[in-house]
């Protein structure tokens, strides 16, 4: 049956149409085409079927069918992800949660919003604004990306140094899990609404709590950033914070890229946690200046954007300390935003960096490694060497405060050799990130994009542990298969297997 794709499709469509309205089940090419890729558009695949449930009961119905027929299920939010996490499965159901886009409740006193997964990130802050509140994580795609996708990817943003990531701002998640079914339990208790089920039958489970914590293991920590591989989220409670009264930004110019990197460490070492701390090198500022006219100094080798927020008194105090430290670290020029319009102009260039780069090159490839801050200079030198080695340009924009790099390799996808060189370039940079104690993905996720690099970052037993964890949630491996966690077979083929010497590691070596 599995081999007979057409028969399979008609069977799945028929079953889905029995539980969903006709317009919520798409299977014809012209209808499924919009779902063939997410933000990682170099990789495309038509899904067998697209299902668009409107509520939790319909999600449950779809999952029940997938479990019964053993059909893979790929959940999708707004499709803005950059690592292919929502890349469809050829023989699977693509579950779009776009129709579940209601804010269910917003409690200004408790500072909690209960939302459905398809709600846009920015829509939460918009709804909270009349109460002087907002939802802190602000990925660059926030006007489009959905909170469900943020939960799947543990999204960050430019303010996460001070305000944390999705995992630090989501209190509770309600989700459907394809478990093995519960055995005999104690009856009453915290954590779920459905009673015992059968293997593969979806169960509604609540993770976390609107109380400060939840009993038992911290399952919410596992769910957030799990890239749709453990459960399908149907409702989310997020924490709302008081909107800072004021924000001001210092723009500091440096005549040397490494000196700018050292200035970042100096700011943190001085005991300052800026609301945002971003860095752009000269090729990046030149690209954006042509595009948005942010007024960046064109002769600077690199610029830093360093933001303070809070009460007016707090901001004044912090801006004075930041300026002092940046001056001491060798900044050649300063500008301090005098009003909101100027602050937004400073940020306009940083926020327009990707589209601006898109204008100066037919294609670009965005990397997402994170490194310990102290290695910024080293990694920049390395990237410069790679530019020469592969004959490709690479402007750099960084979330410098938390060491998250987004080098943008410029190439032309119509030239297969350039594409190949770009992939090699990116792979070498990510390997270097691991080598200096960092990670291959800071906020964009593994998806299908960085699955090979997972073989380098993790040992075979660690990958086996991840797989065992996955199967505890999803025993038949139906949720978003072949993403995130590579098989050992795949690692062996890739040739990048991470092998640590001997049975026991040497304690004198750094562990991370």
């Amino acid at each position, binding site marked *: 049956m599995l081999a007979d794709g057409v028969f399979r499709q008609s069977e799945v469509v028929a079953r889905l149409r029995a539980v969903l309205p006709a317009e919520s089940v798409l299977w014809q090419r012209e209808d499924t085409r919009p779902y063939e890729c997410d933000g990682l558009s170099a990789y495309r695949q038509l899904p067998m079927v697209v299902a668009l449930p409107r509520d939790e009961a319909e999600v449950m119905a779809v999952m029940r069918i997938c479990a019964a027929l053993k059909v893979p299920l790929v959940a999708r939010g707004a499709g803005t992800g950059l690592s292919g996490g929502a890349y469809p499965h050829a023989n699977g159901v693509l579950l779009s949660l776009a129709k579940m886009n209601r804010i269910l409740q917003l409690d200004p006193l408790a500072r909690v919003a209960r939302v459905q997964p398809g709600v846009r990130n920015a829509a939460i802050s918009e709804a909270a604004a009349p109460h002087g509140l907002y939802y802190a994580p602000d990925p660059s795609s926030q006007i489009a990306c959905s909170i469900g996708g943020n939960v799947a990817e543990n999204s960050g943003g430019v303010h996460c140094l001070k305000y944390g990531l999705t995992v630090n701002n989501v209190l509770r998640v309600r989700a459907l899990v394809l478990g093995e079914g519960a055995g005999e339990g104690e009856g009453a208790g915290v954590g779920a609404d459905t009673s015992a089920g059968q293997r593969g039958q979806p169960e509604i489970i609540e993770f976390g709590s609107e109380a400060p914590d939840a009993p038992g293991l911290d399952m919410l920590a596992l769910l957030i950033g799990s890239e749709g591989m453990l459960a399908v989220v149907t409702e989310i409670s997020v924490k709302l914070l008081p909107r800072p009264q004021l924000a001001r930004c210092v723009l500091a110019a440096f005549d040397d890229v490494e000196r700018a990197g050292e200035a970042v460490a100096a700011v943190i070492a001085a005991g300052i946690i800026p609301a945002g701390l971003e860095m752009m090198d000269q090729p990046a500022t030149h690209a954006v200046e042509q595009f948005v006219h942010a007024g960046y100094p064109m002769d600077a080798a690199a610029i830093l954007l360093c933001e303070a927020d809070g009460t007016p008194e707090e901001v004044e105090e912090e801006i004075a300390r930041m300026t002092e430290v940046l001056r001491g670290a060798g900044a050649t020029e300063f500008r301090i935003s005098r009003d909101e319009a100027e602050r937004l102009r400073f940020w306009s260039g940083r926020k327009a960096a990707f589209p601006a780069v898109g204008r100066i090159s037919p294609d670009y490839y965005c990397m997402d490694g994170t490194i310990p801050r102290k290695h910024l200079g080293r990694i920049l030198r390395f990237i410069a060497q790679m530019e020469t080695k592969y004959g490709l340009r690479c402007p750099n924009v960084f979330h410098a405060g938390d060491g998250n790099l987004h080098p943008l390799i410029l190439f032309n996808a119509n030239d297969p050799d350039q594409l190949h060189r770009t992939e090699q370039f990116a792979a070498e940079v990510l390997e270097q990130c691991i080598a200096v104690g960092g990670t291959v993905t800071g906020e964009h996720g593994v998806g299908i994009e960085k699955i090979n690099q997972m073989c380098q970052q993790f040992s075979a037993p660690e990958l086996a*542990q991840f797989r065992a964890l996955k199967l505890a949630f999803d025993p038949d491996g139906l949720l978003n298969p072949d993403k995130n966690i590579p098989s050992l077979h795949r690692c062996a083929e890739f040739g990048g297997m991470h092998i640590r010497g001997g049975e026991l590691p040497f304690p004198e070596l750094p562990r991370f």
Partner: protein
Amino acid sequence: MTPNTHTNTHTDTHADTHADTHADSGIDLLANYARRIRAAAAEGRSLHVRGGGSKDFYGNGPAAPGLSGAAESPEVLDTRGWHGILAYEPSELVITARAGTPLALLQQTLAEAGQYLPCESPLFGSATLGGMVAAGLSGPGRMAAGAVRDFVLGATLMDGQGEIKRFGGTVMKNVAGYDVARALTGSMGTLGLLLDLSVKTLPLAPAEATLCFELDQPGMIEQLNRWSAQPLPLSASLWQLRDGAGVLHLRLRGAQAAVAAACQRLGGERLDDSAATQLWDDVREQRHRWFSPQGKPQDSCSEDLWRIAVPSTTPALDLDGPTLIEWAGGLRWLRVAVSSVAERMAQAALIRATAERVGGHATLFRRASLAAEGATGPAEPEAFHPLKPAMMALQQRLKHAFDPHRVFNRGRLYRAF
């Protein structure tokens, strides 16, 4: 086999020298741990992982005999030999240390560099870093700065087969693989033996002030939630009844100007700094007299101590007993007089039903010492709030994925674990 791993009793203050001098004994120690874990797995025994022993009372602990369901006390695996700070550069905002490192040493090292662990976990005398992560207990600072789990970035653990695995790392933004390191927080050591841990640190705030207000319980809950929705540098709160009147202590932390402006705006009476430091330390360590009203050590107390976590806006709970409230209303301590296990069981059912109705949960934090009722006495309630069947089944499958032979702290989190 006798537990004989506590080879390095002195403390190290410098990571660099530490690693070299103890490399050999470190390898021996890990080999010893692995051997004992494999032996326990093969023989179907559990190991009691123990650091400073400061939280022996916590969970379905070995301190409450018979609770873990074992006929005899399990072998203790002492983690204190695996100690020392491995890496700390203040500008990286992260410290990496071995699990057996005394938390006090860690705090001192951070303080010397003008930093701290904002979750303010209790020391209870002798806590280790591993114990802090395993128990996941946060102190007063949790109200605004975050819980232990918000600060755990990376962990290496030895699994139920004696194999070493590493999850997370030393950087704050890291989404490669599942966030296992964070999920180890509060696991009560049931998923594996914690070896090395990386936790996020933050700079100490430039200014701090503690204000005191007279407010009844409903007034305090309303006021703190309103203040929390405003851009104020709130950091910790404490409410209790004193001589029949409600008293709120509120700690502010932040920039000099922000704290000064907030003091001006909020009013109240300001405590002098040393009294304030003492107050928050006493609350965190449960040395505050509310926690031992009879002036006796807590382990000989005739009252159970319940920890009830609820959404912060929850009105006063309809439960008998003195209460102390932290975290802007989110954490409610309750003392309940108890004279028998049967009575405790009935109280547990009532307290848990009350907590559950408002979306919270209740932990039997410390048990009063009761006269022995013999091996055939009634069953003790679980220390932690029971899970619903589907969640319990999922957590058991997860436990199995890490520790299939139930070697680590069997029964400590839930009896079925």
